[in-house]
């Protein structure tokens, strides 16, 4: 079932995350859209620091592990949420302690910033948003007057967001290093917009998704994929839509433990640092 290719030789998880330098700007999906949780374990174990996380458009448990592990300097997000479990506990603590920079945005502006990077342009315009206090704190949002309008027509320009790395988990890669993401097109946008794309997958299939008319439309071509590692159940415990469900009891245990720094450290010793696949 697995096969390496010239285009995308398979990495170990360890090697995959070794390509993420300290201080990198890393685009991550929200907990429901394909999180490379096994890679995040490996990254935490390595002791990475100074990451600038870009939530596409929000972050949850995945980011909280990294924040708890001291890996994160900045989060750029439309929201920090674990859904029914509320605000991620280590994020809440870091925010209270002033230990983390937060670039507060709004979902469509994050998507537009990534689309600007995808199109290789310095900005994209967006309607709405004007009047929100968010605009007061964003030097990378500039209001101009729409040059196509006859009368005054203020519109916001959103600067391109160019992550160094996009990191996510998907159901499968093929033998040529193409990655199938189905309708999760935000992952494709992340890959197009980022300088490097690293992916963990449940499995590698011995076929070519681009030659299969039913798979091609949901496939990120290997052109955009810089590294692939196999990680079976690599999205545990947040789950992989259509493949396996989230594990609410595991998440609840984490949330209970991570309310304090000590509790996180205890939890991490046995659940984060100890469980890194080779």
């Amino acid at each position, binding site marked *: 079932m697995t096969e390496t290719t010239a285009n995308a030789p398979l990495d170990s998880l360890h090697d995959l995350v070794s390509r993420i330098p300290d201080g990198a700007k890393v685009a991550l999906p929200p907990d*429901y*859209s394909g999180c490379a949780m096994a890679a995040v374990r490996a990254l935490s174990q390595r002791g990475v620091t100074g990451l600038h996380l870009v939530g*596409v*458009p*929000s972050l949850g448990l995945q980011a909280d592990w990294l924040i708890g592990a001291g890996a994160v300097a900045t989060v750029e*997000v*439309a*929201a*920090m*949420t674990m*859904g*029914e479990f*509320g*605000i991620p506990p280590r994020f*809440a603590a870091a*925010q209270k302690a*002033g230990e983390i920079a*937060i670039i*507060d*945005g*709004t*979902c*469509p*502006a994050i*998507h*537009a910033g990534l*689309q600007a990077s995808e199109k290789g342009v310095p900005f994209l315009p*967006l*309607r*709405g*948003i*004007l*009047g*929100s*206090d*968010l605009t007061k*704190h964003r030097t990378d949002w500039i209001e101009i007057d729409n040059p196509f309008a006859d*009368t*005054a*027509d*203020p*519109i916001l320009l959103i600067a391109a967001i160019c992550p160094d790395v996009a990191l996510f988990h998907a159901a499968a890669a093929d033998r040529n290093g193409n990655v199938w993401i189905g*309708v*999760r*097109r*935000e*992952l*494709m*946008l992340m890959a197009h917009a980022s300088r490097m794309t690293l992916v963990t997958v449940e499995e590698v299939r011995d076929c070519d998704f681009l030659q299969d008319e039913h798979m091609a439309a949901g496939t990120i071509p290997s052109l955009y994929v810089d590294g692939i590692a196999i990680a079976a159940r690599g999205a545990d415990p947040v789950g992989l839509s259509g493949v396996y469900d989230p594990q609410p009891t595991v998440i609840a245990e984490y949330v209970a433990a991570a309310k304090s720094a000590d509790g996180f450290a205890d939890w991490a010793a046995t659940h984060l640092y100890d469980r890194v696949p080779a």
Partner: protein
Amino acid sequence: MTSIDQDRRQRTEAMVAAIAPRLVGLRHVAVGASSPIPATAALLARALSPSPLRVSLLGSRAHNPFTDGAKELFDCAAQGRIDAFFLSGGQIDGQANVNLLGIGAYPDFKARFPGSFGSAYLYHLIPRVILFREEHSPRTLVERVDFISASGTSPAGIYRVGGPYALVTGLCVFDFDRTAKRFRLASTHPGVTTDNVAAATGFRFDMQDSVPETPGFDPTTRQLLNTRIADEVAETYPKFASDFWQTNA
């Protein structure tokens, strides 16, 4: 049917009953994630609507029509293809400003909420945005929000095709008057007086001499809710559906 108390059940019913009629006749209603009450109201409105009403539930598989990634909801709204949407808020003020970010002064909030999500954008682009907040208290409904995630109104000359339409709480329904830029008490839920509302509301609002009660469900509608709608809701919100609606009524 589980251990949800009777008060909570009644409030939830009243909120659904308040929202649904405000959606009937529209073409497309979208509902954000983690919004079981608006989802229930939207699915009920679809069943009651004389013309085809499309309901898109984010987070649902059966009712999520999007195939262009997470940006599509926002593009779709900007294209004018979404008639109604729902926003909640940690704070909502009398000018319909919404605060989803935190209490206190930015950035060192005393209490931080999850975040603004797409509110700053969708509030400007979807014609009928219904605000909903079950907790109706001076803490949630304030004179002025601490942080404007999404502004309720805009100055003349700002492109804006959307905005607040109503605010539905556990006590009552306010309609929003976009010209006066103020809420007007539209109805109170069963057992709630206008004095109760005034005492629980941190912002000033308009009110006519006589305020009707929020209409409840007739037996046919209740039957629909406890059968077909409950089943549809359960696809996305199984616990909510079993807590609130009898599927064997």
